[in-house]
């Protein structure tokens, strides 16, 4: 294995295989996230959710996908054609790029690693790629040449930039505690507390950080109750208004990939990644991600959408100061502990 990896061509072969495998895994995960959301939302509303196509409705996504794929792929007349087509591509590209640096698991014996790249600015890279996501929405909204789309796009731009600040700030205490931006280091972070020595989920050390993170992440992925860019009731779908068929699928896909990305990131940053007693790493990671996804769906099933000024007030007047205070307090505690 190592010989193959050190060989120049072997390296590329392995990377290509890894990328293909990861794409497959993430796409499958996305499909079943949609299924999971529909079932969970159904249960919250005391419905069974999809149960017609395949056992437990597991093939529902295939049916929906085929249906959308065979829709006529058209571009409305007065749109900016190039940008209109480009926008969903940006959405999917930005969504998948983040997975280049997210480690999914690690077998100790034999040593198998589940990641494509293990870079020492991992978290920042994820942010960098997800910050490109806003283009997809703004361009889509602008190019559709429709006032609802435009409003959705503008809302998205303001919302995503506002909450990106809080999102970044919420993770600073984690970086301060661990002293690294490499996702693997953060997962491998171990503490010695009296007799205890071993990995610890960082949520115990930065609970406020996690709360800010999860709120900001929901806002970043445009999910309810922060789904103002696509608010069906007020903006009839926002930036998605003019999209249908495969282009709509791409936006939809990107949204769910982003959901999984932030859940995976939260797993790595706050819940100790792939460590869970005796559970095999990949499975442990999966369980944690699924639980976080359930949290997402739970929030969606519970809370009504925020009004726009409330959204901005929450972002700038609550989460941002809270994040700053959290950083300062963590710094003081770290100084006190480390001397």
């Amino acid at each position, binding site marked *: 294995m190592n010989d193959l990896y050190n060989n120049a061509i072997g390296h590329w072969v392995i990377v290509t295989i890894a990328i293909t495998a990861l794409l497959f895994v993430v796409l499958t995960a996305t499909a079943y996230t949609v299924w999971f959301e529909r079932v969970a939302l159904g249960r919250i509303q005391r419905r069974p959710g999809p149960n017609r196509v395949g056992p437990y409705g597991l093939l529902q996504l295939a049916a929906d996908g085929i249906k959308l794929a065979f829709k006529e792929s058209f571009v409305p007349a007065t749109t900016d054609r190039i940008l209109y087509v480009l926008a969903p591509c940006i959405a999917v590209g930005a969504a998948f790029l983040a997975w280049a640096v997210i480690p999914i698991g690690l077998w100790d014996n034999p040593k198998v690693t589940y990641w494509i790249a293990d870079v020492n600015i991992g978290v*920042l890279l994820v942010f*960098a790629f997800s910050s490109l996501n806003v283009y997809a929405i*703004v*361009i889509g909204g602008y190019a559709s040449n429709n006032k609802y789309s435009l409003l959705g796009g503008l809302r998205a731009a303001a919302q995503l930039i506002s909450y*990106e600040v809080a999102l970044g700030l919420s993770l600073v205490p984690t970086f301060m505690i661990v002293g690294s931006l490499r996702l693997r280091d953060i997962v491998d972070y171990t503490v010695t507390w009296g007799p205890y020595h071993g990995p610890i989920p960082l949520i115990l050390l930065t609970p406020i950080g996690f709360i800010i993170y999860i709120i900001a992440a929901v806002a970043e992925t445009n999910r309810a109750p922060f789904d103002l860019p696509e608010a069906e009731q007020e903006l009839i779908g926002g930036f998605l208004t003019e999209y249908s068929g495969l282009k709509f699928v791409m936006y939809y896909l990107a949204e769910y990939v982003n959901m999984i990305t932030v859940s995976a990131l939260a797993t790595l940053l706050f819940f100790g990644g792939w460590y869970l007693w005796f559970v095999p790493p990949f499975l442990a990671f999966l369980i944690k991600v699924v639980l976080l996804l359930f949290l997402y769906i739970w929030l969606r099933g519970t809370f009504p959408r925020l009004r726009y000024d409330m959204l901005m007030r929450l972002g700038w007047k609550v989460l941002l100061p809270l994040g700053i205070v959290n950083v300062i307090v963590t710094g003081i505690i770290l100084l006190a502990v480390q001397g």
Partner: protein
Amino acid sequence: MAIAIFFIAAAMAVAGGIGVISFRQPIRSVLSLVVVMIALSILFLLLSAQFIFVAQVIVYAGAVMVLFLFVIALLGPAKEMARGRLRFQTWLSALFVLALFGLVWAMLQGVQYRQPEKTDLNTFGTVQWIAVYLFTNYLYPFELTSILLLVAAIGAIYLSRKEGDDR
């Protein structure tokens, strides 16, 4: 490998730069500029400036250009009128600029680099490395820029508030 990446990124950057100045709709120019920025961020990575790479993508491409996009979307698709006040203005400017380019080119021909300082290349450009400098030797300019940002934010809020909105 590095050379190939350099030329691909450079071609992207130049194409984007030409796009910036030649597209009629401002939104396309902005998107071309985003292409330039992403190409430059790749070059930064090639120059082992990891943190600058991330800052370029997050701050420049992810925030500043979105602001431009926001304003353009807000103001509507205003194409600029091709009004030739000075008919030869374009060609004159191009001529002058080409002369400037020739000057830079000539300068680059005779450039002599100082002997590089001996730095540990394993940490060169990483976040820790930047942070150590930023918060020790260069703390003063760092604080100055933060004040500048604060002033800019206040100024922008002041400028963009509505007429007679004296709250």
